[in-house]
């Protein structure tokens, strides 16, 4: 019984990162990379991959050592752990994906100051068992990946008419150059957030109606 409880809890922690507490759209964390490197889909994917590696790695390590870290210096400890993972992925990317690394430039090193990662260490990994911490990290990383990829795809389609370098819009489509420039990042992210809020409000309305109907039926049942 205890094992299934643990598993379902882990699954819940995983799912909340994807949708209900999506780090980018809902909590508005980790915005800098979400905007800076999403001018093409490929960049967005590489960035998500790097962030996932760092988040899962440091969540695991922090959660394993959570009892050994003194409370007063925990933030510094978190940062050093995160920085180590960032340096690792920085050099790995440089070795295996040289051009993507060049495109992303300083933003790989800047993963270290992604508030999403430090936030998860402080709010979750330092207080929970490694299993839960990993599922939480995977969920958050998943939400982050979805958000980045969505933004990247929208910006690349509108800005260049392509996805991952393959043309999806006809040649006659005049690319909106602004979408791959900085303002496009803000505008796309803003529009996606509105969309996200709209879907959420629809869901809430549906749930309310269901609850109302259930209450009605219960009342009828009593009356009958």
């Amino acid at each position, binding site marked *: 019984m205890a094992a299934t409880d643990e598993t379902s809890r882990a699954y819940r922690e995983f799912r909340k990162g994807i949708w209900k507490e999506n780090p980018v759209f809902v909590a508005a964390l980790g*915005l800098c990379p979400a905007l*800076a490197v999403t001018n093409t889909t490929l960049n967005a994917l590489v960035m998500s991959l790097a962030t996932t590696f760092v988040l899962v790695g440091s969540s695991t390590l922090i959660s394993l050592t959570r009892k050994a870290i003194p409370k007063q210096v925990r933030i510094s400890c978190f940062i*050093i752990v995160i*920085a180590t993972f960032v340096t690792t992925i920085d050099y790995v990317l440089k070795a295996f994906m040289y051009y993507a690394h060049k495109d992303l430039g*300083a933003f790989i090193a800047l993963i270290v100051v992604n508030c999403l990662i430090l936030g998860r260490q402080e709010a979750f990994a330092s207080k929970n068992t490694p299993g839960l911490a990993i599922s939480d990290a995977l969920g958050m990383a998943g939400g982050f990946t979805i958000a980045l990829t969505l933004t990247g795809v929208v910006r690349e389609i509108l800005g260049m008419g392509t996805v991952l370098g393959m043309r999806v819009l006809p040649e006659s489509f005049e690319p909106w150059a*602004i979408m791959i420039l900085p303002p496009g990042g803000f505008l796309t992210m803003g529009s996606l957030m509105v969309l996200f809020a709209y879907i959420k409000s629809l869901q809430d309305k549906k749930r309310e109606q269901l609850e109302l109907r259930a209450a009605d039926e219960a009342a009828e049942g009593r009356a009958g």
Partner: protein
Amino acid sequence: MQESFVYIFFSACLINNFTLSYFLGLCPFFGVTQRLDTAFRLGLADIFVMTIASMAAWFLNTFVLKYAPYLQTICFIVVIASTVQFVEMVMKKLFPPLFRALGIFLPLITTNCAILGLAIFTTNKGYGFLEGLVYAWGAGIGVTLALVIMAGLREESDLQGVPKLVRGTAMNFLISGVLSMAFMGFAGLFSSTG
């Protein structure tokens, strides 16, 4: 030489504004801009920390990282984090109201990409000590400018009838998109001189 300082300053402040064209330091940009005076003070803290960060970056680059370049990320972040902690202690002691007003965002300056970004950009551009300082002030003032403009706009828009769906972060993004477009206009500022 004089002109190049001017160029570095305005380039960091307006043309390549850290917040609006490099997307650095967005968390405080959206988090602490409900009120004008808080935003302004956060901007000042930013300038202060950036100044120290650029000096630290120069020091580390000259004496440490020449021998161990793979330590760059760790070194920068540790030195900057301790600096911020120091600022925090000084602030808590000398300006308690300010400390309360900035709340959670003071420790988060540590994880402010604008500050680490500054250190990395200074390194990549190969700036010396003075150039680094000018760059830091330009960037800091640029960030403060963005924070203050944003806070002013938000104070106004809070009083308007914005649809519920768009209210909050989404609208802040759309506003900053427009601001970012406006700042793109500065791109031609130095085209003739360099």
